[in-house]
């Protein structure tokens, strides 16, 4: 009992230090599981928009294309639109994701893996120096069209100027409730990707960040 009483001031000091640290650093670091990107995130629900689509050649996920016959590539289209926080504190969002993984090992009954969003539930700023025009972290719920299984998804969406090919970045990560693709993400080490933190470099297409709309 006396030990607890003696530690009281220490707990208070630690709490004060943590509070001060939090006030100095509004971002929060997310250390997710091994293959998922790691980032500093900024404001939640910014008024912003990201549009476009393209091609990724993962693995390895760098700016160079894999041989055509390898089928080692993914294509996608994606957009997210946020008006910013509403007066009632909610974050009205619109968006859509269409994702096709053409790799042989990802096929289901001969069809490429095909993911399509059902709902967009969050968006926040993604703070990444290699995304000079802007970046967002957003996601929601999607369905694997091959099987009907549903997953939560998050995308790491990076606009690094024009043109988008060999400059912009993108990656996706899935988690349950579906099982077969739980943990699905692309492996895009840097190098060859020009972006750190497992963001894949586009080999075609473009991502376009609109800070306001």
């Amino acid at each position, binding site marked *: 009992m006396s030990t607890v009483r003696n530690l009281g001031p220490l707990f208070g000091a630690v709490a004060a230090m943590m509070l001060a640290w939090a006030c100095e650093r509004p971002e929060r670091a997310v250390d997710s599981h091994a293959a998922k990107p790691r980032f500093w995130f900024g404001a939640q629900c910014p008024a912003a928009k990201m549009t476009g689509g393209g091609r990724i050649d993962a693995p390895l996920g760098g700016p160079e294309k894999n041989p055509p016959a390898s089928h080692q590539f993914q294509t996608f289209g994606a957009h997210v639109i946020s008006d910013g926080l509403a007066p009632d504190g909610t974050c009205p969002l619109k968006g859509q994701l269409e994702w096709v993984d053409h790799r042989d090992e990802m096929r289901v009954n*001969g069809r490429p893996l095909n993911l399509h969003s059902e709902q967009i539930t969050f968006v926040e700023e993604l703070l990444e120096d290699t995304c000079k025009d802007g970046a967002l972290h957003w996601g929601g719920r999607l369905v694997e069209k091959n099987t009907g299984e549903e997953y939560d998804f998050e995308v790491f969406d990076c606009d690094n100027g024009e043109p988008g090919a060999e400059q912009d970045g993108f990656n996706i990560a899935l988690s349950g409730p579906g099982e077969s693709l739980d943990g699905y993400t692309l492996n895009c080490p840097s190098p060859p990707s020009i972006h750190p933190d497992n963001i894949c470099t586009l080999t075609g297409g*473009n991502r376009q960040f609109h800070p306001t709309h």
Partner: protein
Amino acid sequence: MKRHATTRGGAWGFVVLGLLFSAALPTTEAWAQTPTARSFGVAVFTPTASTTSPLAVLPTDGSMSDASAPNVSVANFVGADNVFATATGSAGSAESNATLENVSLLNGLITANGVMALASSALTGSAAISDAAGSLLDNLVVNGASIASDVLPNTRIDLPGLGYVVLNEQTLTGDGVSSSGITVNMIHVVLVDALTGAQTGEIVVGSASSSVN
């Protein structure tokens, strides 16, 4: 009372008409900048067949459209599997892509294991740019001859007795300053009457287009 109701009905009519009219009008943003994006897997235009499928066209609200088909077949002209088309964009940017597998045209005269068309356009602030980076032809064979996957844009090959095919056909539009657009047709067959030389039909496989202004 009856006349009063009629007058009110007329007022409601104007309100409804006004709402319909305003809904049909583009937003201020759309007036200023109108991106377009469109992609499709297969198009056939002949006296006996006319089809475009699957087709994705960027909606006027600048969001996204996608379409897919497990297979597409137009007898005697073209067949393909696993066809996907996506079109996205917003003010200042547009992107579209189309992918196909196991492509066969004109009863095997032209075959390809895979076809991908990507078109991307963007305003950079000082210029307007478009490109077809990431587009590919995988294991293309034309009339028995293998064609390199990095075939030069607008490569024309004659098809004796039938017409000709243009591979990786790219058409640029715009002034490169305030406007830019591109259409890429990965395989474009032009059917020609052997006697008169008149064009009798067209087959396009893997098409993507985008434009901004």
